[in-house]
């Protein structure tokens, strides 16, 4: 038996449930940006959130996000937590929320106004407050954006060199300058122009081939973009590669087409990304030889040179280090200097070290040589000046720098020349391996043309398939002819049988119809053309042309004329006459089938 207090509890709970179920859901929609003001290139977190107590969330959208491709989506996360609470006062409470968290990277300064986010809960629409995001110019913009110097003019010329224009995305290779001297630096920058919202982490650039160049790459550490207008259409331009290249030979050198793949279409959480691939165009560089006359060992660039000894006095047999540093703008790996022999001094091979840096679009550096000089005789030793000739492409003039004359003294007894100081580059002795006896006999075969390259090989290879095709074609034609003949014969027999049926039924009109049809069909089949419409005189001439003898042709015409006449005067025809006509027709048709047709 249920106690009254239990009944009261159940009633209260039911009432609470009913009240709760019938109540309006408590919905809150918010849009927040953290921080509210950012610089170009920085990231900002944009959170769109709907919270509903007592209702079912059906959707959440911030439509204005698609309006601004300048706001690059770095990441997107959807969170949908749900919680239940139980209380005597409020019954079972279900609270659910849905959040879209975007991490954005603005690429263009400006004020971005977002219309309210719209959420749908239990079929009703709820809106947030609008949001304004302020993006200040970044450091790169203020400095002129050295990464994007080619696109910094914000408008690319309509000729669009180094690119094949595509309305969605295209690659562009910018080479500056495009005409240089051998060994002179060119700057190669590969851009991706795109109107697609790409995922930066999915960008996979492929380097262009640069055969004939010595290349120094300036690594791209982060993918940054800038808005550029091309043929009136705004594009985002990304720098994918930046290199300093030095042509190693004169003539026309080609920089191969660059390539890139990237994913687009990650605006929605469940959207499958689309893989996009773009290939650029090759770019030609005209490389001139250095102007003549000039020093034969001149390198391209502008250099200074320094030289010093680590000490100016040493005992005979001790080492003195001579160091020469060549420093300047250009490819220091091109630098070559030689130390002339110094009397009474043994010189070891130099150690060479390079330091290079790429700044403001120029490759510069220092090449250092270190020689170990060993005085073998006492006295004063002189290191003569060493010249370095270069051609400065900016001034279009040759220049030259020299080291000063350096001296050092050595004391002590003379040292016998030795070769044991330098590590011996001895080759390890070959392992004693047995390779077996040599072959005493040989056919001494001369260079023979392989079978596959001999003239008859192709014909022998083609012969079986060609023969097969001929056999198939011949068989097919023969079968078709047989089939046609068999079909014509069957119709012929059917017409004769139906004429015999008409004879038995004593139906002259039908009988002569069949006779005419039978003769006409026999002629059609034999001649391969319809003859039913020909006048009898023309038909006779055609039959004679086709090789029928006069008698047969005349008999055919007579039979056709007789049958035509009998068809229209059927009442006067006797059954005997019809039987004779049938016999004649059968005999004539057999003669027609036996006769050969003139071709």
């Amino acid at each position, binding site marked *: 038996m249920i106690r009254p207090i239990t009944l009261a509890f159940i009633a209260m709970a039911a009432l609470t449930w009913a009240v709760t179920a019938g109540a309006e859901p408590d919905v809150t929609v918010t849009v927040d940006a953290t921080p509210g003001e950012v610089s170009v290139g920085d990231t900002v977190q944009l959170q769109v959130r709907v919270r509903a107590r007592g209702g079912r969330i059906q959707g959440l959208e911030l439509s204005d996000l698609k309006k601004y491709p300048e706001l690059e989506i770095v990441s997107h996360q959807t969170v949908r937590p749900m919680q239940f609470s139980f209380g005597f006062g409020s019954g079972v409470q279900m609270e659910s929320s849905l959040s879209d968290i975007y991490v954005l990277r603005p690429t263009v300064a400006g004020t971005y106004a977002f219309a309210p986010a719209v959420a749908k809960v239990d079929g009703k629409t709820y809106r947030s407050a609008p949001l304004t995001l302020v993006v200040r110019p970044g450091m790169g913009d203020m400095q002129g954006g050295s990464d994007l110097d080619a696109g910094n003019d914000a408008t690319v010329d309509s000729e669009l060199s180094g690119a094949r224009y595509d309305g969605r995305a295209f690659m562009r290779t910018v080479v500056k300058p495009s005409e240089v001297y051998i060994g002179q630096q060119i700057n190669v920058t590969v851009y991706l122009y795109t109107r697609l919202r790409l995922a930066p982490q999915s960008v996979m650039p492929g380097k262009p081939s640069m055969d004939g160049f010595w290349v120094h790459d300036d690594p791209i550490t982060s993918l940054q973009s800038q808005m550029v207008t091309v043929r009136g259409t705004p594009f985002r331009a990304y720098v994918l590669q930046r290199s300093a290249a030095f042509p190693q030979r004169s003539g026309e050198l080609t920089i191969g087409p660059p390539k890139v793949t990237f994913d687009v279409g990650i605006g929605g959480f469940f959207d499958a990304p689309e893989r996009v691939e773009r290939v650029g165009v090759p770019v030609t560089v005209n490389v001139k030889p250095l102007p003549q006359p000039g020093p034969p060992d001149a390198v391209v660039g502008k250099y200074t040179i320094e030289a010093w000894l680590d000490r100016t006095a040493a005992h005979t047999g001790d080492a003195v280090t001579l160091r020469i540093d060549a420093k300047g703008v250009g490819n220091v790996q091109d630098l070559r200097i030689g130390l002339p022999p110094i009397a009474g001094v043994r010189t070891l091979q130099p150690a060479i070290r390079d330091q290079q840096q790429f700044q403001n679009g120029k490759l510069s550096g220092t090449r250092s040589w270190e020689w170990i000089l060993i005085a073998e005789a006492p006295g004063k030793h002189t290191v003569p000046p060493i010249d370095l000739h270069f051609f400065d492409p900016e001034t279009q003039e040759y220049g030259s720098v020299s080291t000063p004359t350096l001296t050092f003294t050595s004391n002590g007894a003379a040292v016998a020349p030795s070769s044991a100081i330098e590590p011996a580059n001895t080759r390890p002795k070959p392992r004693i391996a047995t390779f077996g006896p040599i072959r005493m006999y040989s056919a001494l075969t*001369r260079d023979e043309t392989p079978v596959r390259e001999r003239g008859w090989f192709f014909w022998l290879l083609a012969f079986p398939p060609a023969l097969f095709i001929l056999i198939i074609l011949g068989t097919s034609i023969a079968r078709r002819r047989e089939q046609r003949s068999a079909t014509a014969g069957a119709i012929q027999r059917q017409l004769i049988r139906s004429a015999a049926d008409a004879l038995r039924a004593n139906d002259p009109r039908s009988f002569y119809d069949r006779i005419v049809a039978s003769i006409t069909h026999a002629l059609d089949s034999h001649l391969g053309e319809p003859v039913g419409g020909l006048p009898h005189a023309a038909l006779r001439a055609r039959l004679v042309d086709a090789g029928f003898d006069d008698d047969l042709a005349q008999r055919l015409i007579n039979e056709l004329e007789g049958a035509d006449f009998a068809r229209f005067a059927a009442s006067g025809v006797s059954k005997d006459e019809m039987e004779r006509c049938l016999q004649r027709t059968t005999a004539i048709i057999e003669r027609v089938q036996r006769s050969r047709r003139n071709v």
Partner: protein
Amino acid sequence: MRRAWYIALALFVAPLGAFAQGPAPAASRSSLGEIFEAANVAASRGDHAAAISDYSKLVEAGVQDPDVYFNLATAFAEAGDYPRAILDYERALTLRPNDGKATKNLRAAEKALEEQRAEAEGEATIQRSSSISDAIYGSLSENSLAVALLLANLLFFLCLAWASVGRRRVRWLYPLLIASGIALLFCAIGLGAKAGLLRNGPRAVALDDHVVLREGPDPRAQVRGEARGGDRGEVVARDGDFVKLRTVSGLEGWTPASGVGLIDPDHSIH
């Protein structure tokens, strides 16, 4: 109909008979034979330099014989020049793929080179080609594949014609048709592989101990890496005295042609 078959068969078999007779003997066989004898005598005496010189003369004179390459490779190996020994053993095996002794010596030369290098540097590995086509067709010569292709081609189309138009069906016709079709495909792929259709260029062996691979065909171009003597690769481009070598490991770069030897006898670097 039967007469037509006989004619077709006769047309096919007649050139094969001419092929079976082989090429006419070389006019300069006697002088080449003397050089070969002299080279053999030098090799037997242990004068590897003279033997190498004489065998090389034969090769320069156009002799493309597996036994000559075998002896040349053996002379190089005995002299301790293992990369060149590897090159000439490979050439011998290209001309006579099922030469067991040449295969054994090739492995011995590779092993000796590895041991020599390991002794000097601590470790060593030689990059060998290991393609599927080499594994399948390695023991078959190009000419035998070409003849087999012709026979399989004839058999396949004969069976096909019989199956298409023949009035009498025999039990073994369709198995024979399938078998000949498979043989035809096998031979066609093999011949394509031997002819280099599956490669990017002629096969090559690095000859120098350090073959420096550069960005461009110039000694001043930036270094991309290096191949070691005995490493296999393919020559994918040429420019003057430079070749672009792609090693088995995928490294690619320009190097002087003198440091690389081509395995396939019908190719030359210069």
